[in-house]
């Protein structure tokens, strides 16, 4: 390990030649729509990526593997939960595979690191989850679209719920990264009571999963409610410790993106009954009654035998949005203006029902209050209680110059 491996000259030349070859042939003859999908397939967060991958494959099935008569080619790439890997994979997708669309992206920091690679190469970049504030505001781009939400919106809806339920003081916990900070900023934006305390915990591949110290602080703070954002496996770990600490009665829990269909079966397996009845806000729910959602949820449950997560719903929509763009351009993906203006219409059966795009290409959509319940077959799932925000636009849209 004393000497660093030198770049192989032959490899570089080979790559250059391959790129040149691709450039020559790509415009002349395109027989398929190429989509790069960057998500997390390894590390414990790989379970989220798997759910998205399943949803993408379902969407391809539903489209009959064709967009405007052309074959669909999907390239799945694993970001390993790391921004630098995500960027490398995006570079590979746009340079080597010459995809037309890059989509996926669970994590805000990965998306922020990868955005330039995709947009500078003149590709469409579509976030199927991450919604960092910068991309909605100053860094908005004509070729960037979201099929999810801007990070602040869902906690803003939760802030409204807290006001309605007359919660006076709140303890806040979230991971210390771009989205975690947006989530905290979002709930603080609408919540009118007092923030009794706040913890930002270590995140990433070696994320903190033991919250004993933070839960003890939250309890001692005397807050009337506990707001948390812990996506992926941290959510399950948090819920278990919350119940083990005996806080279910004394410190009601309000979550965003924490209790989802990935965490619920495991919580059910561990008899964590404290999660039943807990409230969260979201733009979507498996029981949302729209034509697109009925087809998606029943198709997903039939094919994979489980409820789809919101990650899956957004990934499904990202493929459907691309399809609407490709069809709008009559199958000519190189006509980016036509694809863009078609996608801006959001003219497809979205899982969330009809929505519109704002100037920054983030959806303007409803947010719902949901409750964890047991369904008719005894599975734990989420059910809509009420609509909290109608046709809500993110607060950063004004900073976007588009």
């Amino acid at each position, binding site marked *: *390990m004393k000497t660093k491996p030198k770049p192989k000259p032959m490899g570089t030349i080979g790559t250059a030649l391959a790129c040149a070859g691709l450039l020559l042939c790509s415009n002349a003859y395109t027989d398929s729509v190429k989509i790069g999908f960057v998500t997390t*397939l*390894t*590390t*414990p967060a*790989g*379970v989220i990526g*798997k759910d998205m991958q399943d949803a993408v494959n379902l969407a391809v099935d539903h489209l009959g593997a064709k967009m405007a008569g052309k074959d669909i080619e999907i390239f799945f790439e694993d970001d390993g939960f790391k921004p630098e890997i995500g960027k490398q994979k995006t570079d590979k997708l746009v340079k080597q595979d010459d995809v037309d669309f890059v989509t996926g992206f669970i994590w805000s920091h990965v998306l922020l690191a990868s955005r330039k690679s995709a947009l500078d190469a003149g590709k469409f970049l579509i976030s199927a989850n991450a919604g960092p504030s910068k991309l909605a505001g100053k860094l908005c781009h004509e070729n960037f679209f979201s099929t999810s939400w801007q990070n602040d919106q869902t906690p803003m809806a939760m802030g409204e719920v807290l006001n309605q339920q007359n919660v006076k003081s709140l303890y806040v916990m979230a991971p*210390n990264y771009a989205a975690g*900070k947006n989530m905290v900023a979002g709930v603080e934006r609408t919540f009118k009571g007092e923030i009794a305390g*706040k*913890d*930002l*915990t*270590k995140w990433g*591949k*070696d994320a*903190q*999963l*033991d919250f*004993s*110290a*933070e839960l*003890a*602080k939250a*309890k*001692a703070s005397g807050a009337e409610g506990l707001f948390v954002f812990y996506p992926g*496996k941290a959510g*399950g*770990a948090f819920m*278990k*410790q919350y*119940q*083990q*600490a*005996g806080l279910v009665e004394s410190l009601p829990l309000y979550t965003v993106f924490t209790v989802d269909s990935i965490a619920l079966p*495991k*919580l059910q*397996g*561990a*008899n964590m009954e404290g999660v039943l009845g807990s409230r969260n806000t979201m733009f979507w729910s498996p029981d949302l009654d729209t034509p697109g959602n009925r087809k998606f949820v029943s198709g997903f449950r039939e094919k994979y035998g489980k409820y789809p997560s919101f990650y899956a719903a957004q990934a499904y929509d990202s493929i459907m949005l691309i399809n609407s763009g490709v069809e709008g351009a009559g199958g000519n993906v190189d006509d980016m203006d036509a694809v863009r203006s078609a996608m801006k219409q959001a003219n497809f059966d979205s899982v969330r029902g009809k929505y519109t795009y704002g100037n920054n290409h983030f959806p303007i959509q409803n947010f719902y209050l949901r409750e964890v319940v047991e369904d008719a077959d005894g599975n734990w799932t989420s059910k809509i209680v009420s609509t909290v925000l109608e046709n809500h636009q993110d607060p950063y849209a004004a900073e976007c110059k588009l």
Partner: protein
Amino acid sequence: MNWDLLIIQCLNGLQLGLLLFLLAAGLTLIFGIMDFINLSHGSFYMIGAYFCASITNLTGSLILGVVISLIGVLIVGALVEALLARRLYRNDHLDHVLVTLGLILCFDTAVHFFWGAEGMTIPLPPALDGQVNMGDIVIPTYRFVIIIAGLLVAGGLYLLVNKTHLGMLIRAGASNRVMVTALGINIDRLYMIVFAIGAAMAGFAGMLIAPITEASVGMGNEIIIIAFVVVIVGGIGSVKGAFYGALLIGLIDTLGRSYLDDFLKLSMPANYAETAAPALSAMMVYILMAAILAFRPRGLFPPATKS
């Protein structure tokens, strides 16, 4: 000052420290006696958790899960020693690092292959799922169980190392390996026993943590770094050092997470303090290690002599 909270946080720190001790004890013995750097020690932690989760879910008994898994991890540890580690003791540390790093990838991929990426939970019996009340101090019962189990293992290890013939050989091996061999002791067998016991303790730590977090691929790879810090702070080869080092680091980490943001708020705006505190508390154990090494380069409790 909220004294109840301070006591709760100290108990939380103690619990983290004891988990770290279970990992570090095996690591320090293997490092100290065989002079073998085992990066894949964290894989035993992961395997312990997965074995226990599978068997507990299968049989419905946590105790049965723990007992069978302990035997399982002992066997895996002995196999790794006999098939792989034994051939590498004479090589230099770089070879150890390369091979055990490869071993981590093998274990992670194998677990991913057999159990999938989802991770596994261990359901706790209702008796352990509640809380213990001592006046105003409320602690989850299960965290109490971890503290007691950790202290029992530490006590058992103390007796084993200090009061038995095997322990005498282990201590001798840690302070002068060559002399032990020269006295005609079957060193191969001693190595295998030490390796397997170390693996089993790491596996036990994994079983203890899994009901709180869960069994997941690569769960040992992060905590093993901290366990190495414990070994170095405590003194390589010293079980006593690993014990005090682990408690020190567990307390520093927990108290840092609990009080650092309030402390920083005294000298900087609240929003800076909130961002800086988690970063700084993650660094604190390394700062502590650097400080200790500056004054005691061989750690807090180095073994008497080392060849």
